[in-house]
């Protein structure tokens, strides 16, 4: 049946857990594009025939045309949804993505990601006077300036804004400014202690 493989593409992406980016389905896209090409050529031939008289092919032409449109819609939905997920990755992980996620993106998607990073950076720099404003910090309104964190593994020295360094050793607890800790909390080096 026409349009099966395209639907399979979309279903595959839908199955992936919320926000998770599965590997780029190169094969699936290629098959759908081949199907579209075959349909299109078939249609071209039929249209020429229909022009020269055979009017019973018109329904077949209509049907193939609908399939083509359906395939196109599925492919575009697939690509667009992936782009939305990649955009969310920038807000969650920062500028540097973990390796396994990078392998899941096609080269065009990587290109898109870089362009997106650049325009986000330009925008952030243009706000807030001279230094710019980092919009990716503090996604939820913070309750306090400083938070208590506990070190889960040895991380070595860590520098904070006023130039002083802190030695992050396993099982030591620190009371640090929130914005410095967020990165390390996401990486799993520090743990926020709620008391």
């Amino acid at each position, binding site marked *: 049946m026409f349009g099966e493989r395209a639907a399979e593409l979309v279903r595959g992406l839908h199955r992936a857990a919320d926000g998770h980016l599965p590997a780029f389905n190169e094969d699936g896209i290629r098959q759908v594009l081949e199907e579209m090409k075959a349909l299109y050529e078939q249609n071209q031939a039929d249209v020429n025939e229909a022009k020269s008289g055979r009017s019973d092919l018109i329904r077949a032409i209509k049907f193939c045309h609908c399939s083509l449109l359906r395939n196109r819609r599925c492919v575009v939905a697939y690509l667009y949804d992936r782009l939305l997920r990649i955009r969310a990755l920038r807000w969650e992980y920062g500028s540097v993505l973990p390796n396994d996620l990078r392998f899941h993106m096609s080269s065009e998607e990587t290109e898109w990601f870089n362009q997106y990073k650049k325009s986000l950076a330009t925008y952030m720099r243009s706000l807030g006077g001279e230094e710019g404003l980092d919009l990716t910090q503090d996604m939820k309104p913070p309750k306090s*300036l*400083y938070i*208590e964190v*506990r070190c889960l593994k040895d991380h070595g020295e860590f520098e904070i804004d006023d130039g*002083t*360094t*802190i*030695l992050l*050793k*396993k*099982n*030591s*607890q*620190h*009371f*640090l*400014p929130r914005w410095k800790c967020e990165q390390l909390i996401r990486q799993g080096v520090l743990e926020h202690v*709620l*008391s």
Partner: protein
Amino acid sequence: MFLSDFRKEFYEVIVAQRVLLLVASDVDALCACKILQALFQCDHVQYTLVPVSGWQELETAFLEHKDQFQYFVLINCGANVDLLEILQPEEDTFFFICDTHRPINVVNVYNETQIKLLVKQDDDFEIPAYDDIFRDEEEDEDDSGNESDRSEPSGKRKRFEEDIMERTMKRRQRREWESAMVMFDLAWIMSKDLNDMLWWAIVGLTDQWVQDKITQMKYVTDIGTLQRHVSRHNHRNEDEENSLSIDCMRIAFEYDLRLALYQHWSLFESLCNTCYTSASLKLWSVQGQKRLQEFFADMGLPLKQVKQKFNSMDISLKENLQEMIEESASKFGMKNLRVQTFSIHFGFKNKFLASDIVYATASLMENIEKDEPGADNFIKALDSLSRSNLDKLHQGLELAKKQLRATQQTVASCICTNLVISQGPFLYCYLMEGTPDVKLFSKPVSLCLLSKYLLKSFVCSTKNKRCKLLPLIVAAPMDVEQGTVIMVGIPPETESSDKKNFFGRAFEKAAESTNSRTLHNHFDMSIIELKMEDRSKFLDALISLLS
């Protein structure tokens, strides 16, 4: 030097700085640390907390962090040795020491710049005057005669100084405030005290009492002090109209039974495993068991009820339980079964006495079950003091029950098999390697508790009048592979004992004279580790030293 105004000379100095907190591994230190952390979080003081369990860890932590911090706060460690000599800090490093270990080293007292002691000067410390101990260089030069004579007079003077140093070292103070209470007092002076901090101060005080480090009189005095704070913070409960919701935390004064963990255990178990009752009733003997049954019969409590979990006991029996037990107990020779204490209450299910929390936190801190490094256990114990970590607290209570049971069984077996021998100037007991639960006693606080229970029970069981006044040394295997033994010395059990312990110096001297391989790693100098082979000659040296 001693600080007089803690707020100006300590808190306002460090509030603008980054501070390193070095905290020793005992419950009083944990409570003081929690109070100080709460104050720091209120004022946004950037701090780093490093747990230390001995002098070596203290030195390592200092070396790692000395480039990054200038202000160090030491809780329950550091007062009883010459800190500057051990750590060799830079000129601009400052140490604030809040420590209950006595005697305070004279160098720490007379250092004007770098060492500040957060100690309440309630009464005289019997510290000799500065001039008696330290002599100026110029005096030496003026007094010296010929070149040849020079060595001799200064030699004599040096010996004289050392003499005074020794006498000073042995001097002990009468009263001291627990670290947790010092911190709470600081918070109160700054009007930043909360009910939570008051509870931690209560737990710190109760810990010192449970470990027998303060006298009964001091305990009662401090309870009185805290009672004023408790009524100030918790008066809203009496007023019917404006009372707080049941989920809010409230502290109440209790004149409650001295039985360990009895509300979270069964009454029977608690009576068997509390040192006071077990020693008075002599529960290690058959007659003791009979006496226990008589005790319950006297109170009219059926055995079936008493062996059940306390919460499931009949309400009619629980109603006047405390008065009933007190009456019957005085017939059996236990006059002080009730003691003044506080309890905390939040939610419908959660009611704990201060001593419950002490036992739970202490067992969490010395948990040997999973063989984790000490710092992990410290963190768990620190967490269990917050009210949002009830599961850790319950875990601690279960561990505490195991520990109390093990302690009681070990004491019973030691008394029954006469393992406590009199060596002349002291009593001695060695726990063999095959003893059940001996691994539990490879930790200092557990071993100290065991020793105190053992001494109390021994005093109740022996007929020898002289032996009742002797101190006790207990040794237990610490690490079987390395062949080390941990040894603890505790003062004798007397009615008016002021809990002074001179074993620290004695151990040091004995180790020196016999060249034993000892490690004086603990902050409390009366706890040492030594190699198994050196045990006998060490003991012989001690005997000759103390007789």
